[in-house]
C-alpha cells in the first residue's frame, strides 16, 4: 500500500471510463450493442423499420411492460424479485375502470384509488419480506394469487368498457414532425428518467444498491434497511399502478385477464438490461434497453413477415445469454 505516481494519461482514461460507468453503468454496454445489432438487422431487412412512426409504435408497445419493469428493477436491485406485478396491475386496471364506470366515481378519484390499491399491495409485499423475513419469491407468488383472485371476484369476470376520456388520456397522441407519439410513451420515459435520477444521483439510490449488494454492511453503516425495503416495494407498487393506467389508456377497456404474463416479461426486460438477479448491480437505463430489445425484435419480425413465436425463441436465448454473462462477471470478481 504505497502511494503510486500516476501518469496523466492513465488518469484521463480512468476518468473517461468513470464517466461512461456513471452514465450507463458498464453492464449496459452489452444490451445496447444487442439493441443496435437488432436495429441494424431489421433496417436492412425492411425499409419500414427505421421510420418515426414505426419506432414510436415500438415504444408504445413496450410502454406497459416497460413501466412494470421499472418497479421490477427496483425490487431486483435489492436482491428481491416480484412475481406479483402483472396481477397487481390487473387489479389496478379493473379498479380504476370499474369504479369510474360501474360505481360512477369521479374518474380522477377512481384513478387515485387504483394507484393507492397498487401501492398498498406493494407495501404488503415489502411488509411480508421485511417483518417475516420471507423470501420475496414466495411472498410475491402469494400476493400474485391474491391480487389475481381479487381482480376476478371484484370484476365478476366482466370486462369494463365505455370509459370516460380521463382514463384514456395517456393513449392520446401528439405530433413530433410527421410522427405521432402517445402521452403514455412520454410518461414511461419520464418515469425511467426519474428513477434513473433517484438511483444514480441520490443517497437513497446508493442505499438501494448497498442493501442488495451487502445488506449486513448497509445495516452497519446505519442505513435503515427495513424501512428502505418497505419504501422500495411500496414505490414499485405505485409504479405498477401507473402501468395499470397506461394499460387502460392503450386498450380502452378494463380487463380482468390483462397482464397475466407481464410479470415474467418485466423480469425479462430487467435481465436483458444487464441488471443482476443477485441484486446490487444494474440500472433502469439497461431495463429500458432490455424492454426495447424485446419490442424491436417482435416488431421487426412482424415487418419481415416471420411468425411472432420466433420472437419468443430469440428472447429466451437472449435471457440465457444475459444471465450467463452476469454470472461470469460475478464469479470473476470473487
Amino acid at each position, binding site marked *: *500500500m*504505497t*502511494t*503510486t505516481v*500516476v501518469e496523466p494519461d*492513465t*488518469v484521463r482514461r*480512468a476518468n473517461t471510463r*468513470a464517466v461512461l*460507468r*456513471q452514465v450507463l453503468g458498464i453492464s449496459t454496454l452489452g444490451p445496447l450493442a444487442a439493441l443496435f445489432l437488432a436495429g441494424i438487422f431489421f433496417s436492412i431487412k425492411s425499409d419500414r423499420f427505421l421510420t418515426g412512426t414505426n419506432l414510436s409504435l415500438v415504444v408504445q408497445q413496450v410502454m406497459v411492460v416497460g413501466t412494470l419493469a421499472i418497479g421490477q428493477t427496483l425490487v431486483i436491485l435489492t436482491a428481491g424479485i416480484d412475481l406479483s406485478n402483472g396481477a397487481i396491475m390487473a387489479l389496478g386496471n379493473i379498479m380504476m375502470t370499474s369504479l369510474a364506470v360501474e360505481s360512477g366515481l369521479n374518474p380522477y378519484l377512481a384513478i387515485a384509488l387504483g394507484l393507492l390499491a397498487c401501492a398498498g399491495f406493494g407495501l404488503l409485499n415489502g411488509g411480508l419480506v421485511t417483518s417475516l423475513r420471507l423470501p420475496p419469491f414466495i411472498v410475491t407468488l402469494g400476493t400474485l394469487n391474491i391480487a389475481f383472485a381479487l381482480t376476478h371476484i371484484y370484476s365478476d369476470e366482466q370486462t369494463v368498457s365505455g370509459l370516460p376520456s380521463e382514463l384514456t388520456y395517456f393513449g392520446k397522441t401528439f405530433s413530433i414532425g410527421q410522427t405521432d407519439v402517445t402521452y403514455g410513451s412520454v410518461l414511461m420515459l419520464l418515469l425511467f428518467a426519474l428513477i434513473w435520477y433517484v438511483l444514480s*444521483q*441520490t*443517497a*437513497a439510490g*446508493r*442505499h438501494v*444498491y*448497498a442493501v442488495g*449488494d*451487502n445488506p*449486513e*454492511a*448497509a445495516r*452497519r*453503516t*446505519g*442505513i435503515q434497511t427495513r424501512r428502505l425495503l418497505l419504501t422500495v416495494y411500496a414505490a414499485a407498487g405505485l409504479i405498477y399502478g401507473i402501468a395499470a393506467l397506461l394499460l387502460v389508456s392503450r386498450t380502452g377497456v378494463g380487463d380482468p385477464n390483462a397482464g397475466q404474463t407481464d410479470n415474467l416479461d418485466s423480469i425479462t426486460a430487467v435481465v436483458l438490461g444487464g441488471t443482476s438477479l443477485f441484486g*446490487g*448491480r444494474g440500472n433502469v437505463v439497461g431495463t429500458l434497453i432490455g424492454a426495447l430489445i424485446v419490442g424491436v425484435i417482435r416488431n421487426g419480425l412482424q415487418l419481415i413477415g416471420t411468425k411472432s413465436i420466433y420472437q419468443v425463441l430469440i428472447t429466451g436465448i437472449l435471457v440465457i445469454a444475459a444471465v450467463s454473462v452476469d454470472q461470469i462477471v460475478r464469479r470473476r*470478481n*470473487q
Partner: protein
Amino acid sequence: MSVTADETTKAGREDIVFEARGLVKRYGHVTALDGCDFELRAGEVLAIIGDNGAGKSTLIKALSGAVTPDLGGFLLDGHPVRFHSPADARAHGIETVYQDLAVAPALDIASNMFLGREIRRRGPLGSVLRMLDKPAMKRQAAQQMSELKIGLRSMTNPVEELSGGQRQGVAVARAAAFARKLVIMDEPTAALGVRESGQVLDLIRRIRDRGLPVILISHNMPQVFEVSDRIHIQRLGRRVALITPKEHTMAEAVAIMTGAMPGRAEKEPVATADDGAGTITAAPASGVSTVGVPVASAMPTRQVRKSTRSLTDTIGKS
C-alpha cells in the same frame, strides 16, 4: 508518538479517552462480562486478547453500542455516556471495523466511504433535489486514501475490483475518516493473507499516529505484540491484566490468558479511592497488572505443560 510502557504506567487520568467500570452482561445463566473494566488512553493501540468465551466479543459489542450491559458505566473523555445502539456510539465518534470486510462490493470506493453519510450538493440541488455531491465525496475519499498512504487511485472503481487488503483498507479509511474519538477493529486481518495483514497493521499505526486511539481485537499474538502499545487480557468475563509488549513476553501473555499464570490483578484489587470512580457505577474493580506477573513456580506443573501447548497452538494458528 507511541506511548512507552513507562509513560503508560505513570500517566495520569487526563489522557484516558474511553473507560468502562464493572461491566456485567448475563445471557441467561452465562455471565459473559463479570465486572469487566476497560481503559483506553490517547494515542495508543490497545490490543484485547483472551481465550474463546472470555467475553471479548461481548466487551467490544458493549463498547460499540451493539450490546447494553446489565451493570456498569462508560466515561468518554471523562463524561458519562450510554449507548443504546451502534448508531449511538457512532454519533459519539466511535467507529468500528469488522473482520468480514463490511463493504458493498459493487459500489465504488467513494460511495463505500460515504455510505450512510453521503454529502449532498449545496443549495436547492441538494436540499430539494437531494442530489449527491459526487465530486466532493470523490475528492475527500482520495485525500483520505493518500493521507493514510493507501495506494488506490480511482475512487470510482468498484470495490470488488480490489484485493482483500485494499478492501479492508477502504473500511479502515472510512472508520478513520468519521471517527472523532477512537476506532475499534474486530480482527481486521482475519480474512487476509500475510502481506495484506502487514499493510493493515501499518494502517493501524498511521491512524494512531494521526491521533486516534485504536482498539484491536486479535487472535494473532505476533501481530498483537508487533502493533500494540498495551494489551488488555480478558479472562472469564474480566480484565485480568493490562500489560505492555515491552515488559512481557508472548508466553507470559498466553499464560495469563489461559489462566496458567494468574494476572497479579486477580489477587490484588487496585485501590479505587483516587481515580474518580464516583462518577461511574462503583463496582468491585478487578485490578490491573502493569507491573509484572507472579513467578511461574506458583503454578501446578501440569497446568504449565498445558499452557505451553496452548501457546504453541496460538502462535501456530497465526
